C-alpha cells in the first residue's frame, strides 16, 4: 500500500482508539481529581460495561440498532449503580485514604473480574453494530461504524464538559475538588458528590466500552489494556486535569494507532510507557497538572 493511504488508515485507526481512550481516561481522571482516589478497578468497569452491553443486546434481540441503543442507556446506568454501591460499602469506610483505596480497588478489580467470569463465562461474545456499512475508499474499505464511534465519543465529551463547566452539579464537583472542607462549609453535600463522581467515572468507562464492543467483542479480561492506557494518559496529562487528559488521550491514542500500523503494537506500548517515565522525571505533575497542594 502507498504511503498516503497507509497514513490515512493509521490516522483513522488512531482516532478511534483516541476517542474511546479519552472517554475512559476522563472517568479515571475525574475520580482522581475530585476524590484523590486512584481507581485501579477502572478497567473492570469498562469490561462490565461491555459485558452488560452484550447481555442487553442479546436480551432485546430485535434489530441490532435497538439492542445497541438499549445497551447504551442500560449498561452505564447499571455500571454506575455498581460503582455507587462499591463507593458506599468500601471507599467511604476507608475514609478515601489514598493508599487504602488503591488496595481496595485492586480487590474490587478481582471481585468484578471473577464475577464476570463466573456469570458471563470465559468466551468472547460479539455485539452487532447498530449500523453496518462499509465506507469504500479507493485504496481500502473502512467500517462506517468506527467513524460513528469517533463522533459519538466527541459528543459525549462535550456533554461532560458542559456538565462540569455550566451546571450546578458541575460547580459542586469543582468546588469539592478545589477544597473539600470549604465546600462542606458552603453546604455542599460532599459525601453525595463523592458517590456521584465515582459513579460518573465508572459510567464514562462503561460508555466507552459500549461504543467499542461492536468492534472488539466482550470478554472478561478486556479491562486490562484500557486501564493501562488510561493510567498512561492521566499521568501524562496531569492527574486531575481534564483538559490534559483529553489532550494526552489524543496524543497517545493517535500515536498508538500510527505506530501500530507502521511498526508494531508492542513498540507503541513501549514508547507510551517511556513517555510516562520521561514526563514523571521532567514534569512530575504531568503536562497540565497543578502543583501538588
Amino acid at each position: 500500500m502507498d504511503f498516503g493511504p497507509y497514513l490515512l488508515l493509521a490516522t483513522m485507526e488512531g482516532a478511534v482508539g483516541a476517542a474511546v481512550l479519552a472517554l475512559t481516561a476522563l472517568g479515571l481522571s475525574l475520580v482522581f481529581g475530585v476524590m484523590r482516589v486512584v481507581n485501579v478497578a477502572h478497567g473492570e468497569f469498562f469490561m462490565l460495561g461491555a459485558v452488560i452491553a452484550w447481555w442487553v443486546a442479546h436480551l432485546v434481540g430485535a434489530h441490532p440498532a435497538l439492542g445497541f441503543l438499549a445497551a447504551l442507556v442500560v449498561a452505564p446506568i447499571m455500571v454506575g449503580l455498581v460503582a455507587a454501591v462499591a463507593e458506599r460499602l468500601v471507599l467511604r469506610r476507608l475514609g478515601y485514604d489514598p493508599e487504602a483505596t488503591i488496595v481496595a480497588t485492586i480487590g474490587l478489580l478481582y471481585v468484578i473480574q471473577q464475577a464476570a467470569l463466573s456469570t458471563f463465562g470465559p468466551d468472547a461474545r460479539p455485539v452487532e453494530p447498530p449500523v453496518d456499512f462499509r465506507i469504500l475508499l479507493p485504496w481500502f474499505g473502512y467500517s462506517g461504524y468506527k467513524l460513528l464511534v469517533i463522533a459519538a465519543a466527541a459528543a459525549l465529551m462535550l456533554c461532560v464538559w458542559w456538565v462540569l463547566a455550566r451546571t450546578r452539579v458541575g460547580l459542586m464537583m469543582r468546588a469539592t475538588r478545589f477544597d473539600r472542607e470549604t465546600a462542606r462549609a458552603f453546604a455542599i453535600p460532599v459525601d453525595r458528590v463523592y458517590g456521584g463522581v465515582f459513579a460518573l467515572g465508572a459510567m464514562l468507562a462503561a460508555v466507552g466500552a459500549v461504543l467499542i464492543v461492536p468492534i472488539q467483542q466482550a470478554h472478561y479480561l478486556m479491562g486490562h489494556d484500557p486501564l493501562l492506557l488510561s493510567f498512561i494518559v492521566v499521568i501524562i496529562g496531569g492527574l486531575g486535569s481534564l483538559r490534559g487528559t483529553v489532550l494526552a488521550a489524543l496524543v497517545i491514542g493517535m500515536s498508538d494507532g500510527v505506530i501500530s500500523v507502521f511498526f508494531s503494537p508492542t513498540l507503541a506500548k513501549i514508547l507510551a510507557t517511556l513517555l510516562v517515565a520521561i514526563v514523571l522525571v521532567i514534569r512530575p505533575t504531568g503536562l497540565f497538572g497543578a502543583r501538588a497542594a
Partner: protein
Amino acid sequence: MTTKAAKPGSFRVNRRTALQGMAGAAGLMAAPGFVRYAQAHSGAPIKLGVPIHRTGIGASYGRWYERVLTAAVKLVNEGGGIAGHRVEAIVEDDGTDPRRGTEVIEKFATQHKVDAVFGHLFSHVVNAAAPRAGELKMPYIVCSEGHHVASVKLNRYCFQPGITDVKSQVQSMAPWVMANLGKKVTMIFPDYAFGHDHRDYFSAAVKAKGGEVVALIPIPPTETSFTRHFPKIPASTEVLYHVMVGPGVLTFVKELGQHFGSKRPQLFGFVDSIEAVDLASPALEYLEGTHFWEGNPRYAQANQSAHDKFFRERVGVDANGASKSDPKDVSTYAHMFSVWETLFIIKQAMEKADYHGPEKKVAFMEALESLKEFPESRQHPQGRKIFNGKTHQVFGHQFISKVENKKLKVVHKTSIEDGMYPDEGDYTKMSF
C-alpha cells in the same frame, strides 16, 4: 491524608471475626477439591491429571476438551477401566497461563499423586510445563498439535500420540494450496510458539513447492483489533494464510471483510481461527467460498464413518459439530478428538505394560514408545494413525474443507505419508 486513614481498631480481630474465619476455613476443607488430597488414596484407581484451559484465552477449547474427557473416561470405565482399575480423571484449571500451567503439573505430582498427566493444549503453556514434568518424572502426554514434542527438544516424558503436529499438517497441505489457490502467500499468525511453527514450516513447505511467501505478519497474542495490520499485506498476495486463536477471531474476519470487500485474495485458514465459533455468525458470511484446514471435519460429511457417529453421540455433539443441548454452543471439533484418542492410547500402553501403579511408570512409557499404529476405530474416530516411538509424535490424515452454505465441506483428504518428515532426534536414547 494518611492520618485520616485507618481508625484505630478498624482491622482488629475480635472473637466474632475469628470464629467467622475458622468457619470459612472449615468450609474450604470440606469443599470437594480439597478432600481428594486431604485423605490419601491407597492406589486403587488409576489417576490421570488433566490440566484444562477452563479460563483465559483457551477457554472455549478447554470447555470441550473437558466434555470429551468426561465422555471418554465414562466409556473406558464402562469397559472395565484400565487393566482392571477404575480411571479417575482429576481436572485442574490452568488459566491458559504458562506459569499456572507449570504449577498445576506440580500439584498433580505432589498433591494428587497422579499416574500420568495428559491433555495439555496451548503450546506456550506446554513449552513452559514440559521441563517441569520431566523433572518430576511425570509422564506428560499432550494434545497440543505444536511441533515441540516431535522436535525432540523436550524430554523423554513428553508424548503427543493423539494429534498430528503443525509441521506435518502444513507440509501435507502446502502442495494442495499451491496447486489450487496460488503461489504467492502472505501469512498472518499469532506471535508465539504455535504461530512460529506455522511461520517456519509452512514457509519451508511453500518454498519446496516453488511458491513464495511475500510477507509474514505476526500478531501479538492480546491483540483485539486487526485493521492496523492489513496494510502490510502486499498487493501481489494471491493467498492469505491465516491462523488466529483467542477471543479476537470474529473481529479478525469482520475487519478483513471491511478492508478487502470483494477484491480479496484467496483465503486459506487453519480452522483454529473459527473453532468454537458458529459459521452462521454475522460477519462470517465473508468466509463463504474460502478454505480451511480441519483436523477432523466439524460437519458430518456424506461419507461419515460409524466411528465418527459413535464419537459424536457419546460426546453430545450433533451433525453440525454443536452441542446437542445448545446448537449455538459450537465445539472445537478439529482438535478435541485428541483427548478421546489419547486416553485410549494411554489405556493400550498401560495394559501392554501390565500397569498397576506408579512403580511401573517407566514400563508404561516404554510400552507407549513401542506402539506403531492405531487403526480407525471407535477408539480412533478421526482415522488411522502411525506413531513414531522415537520422536513420540503421531502422524495422520488432514482435511481441507471449503465453506459452502455456512458449512464446511471436505474437498481434500491428505494421505498419512504426505505429512511425514525425517526424524529430528531420538527420545529413546535419552534416559528416564
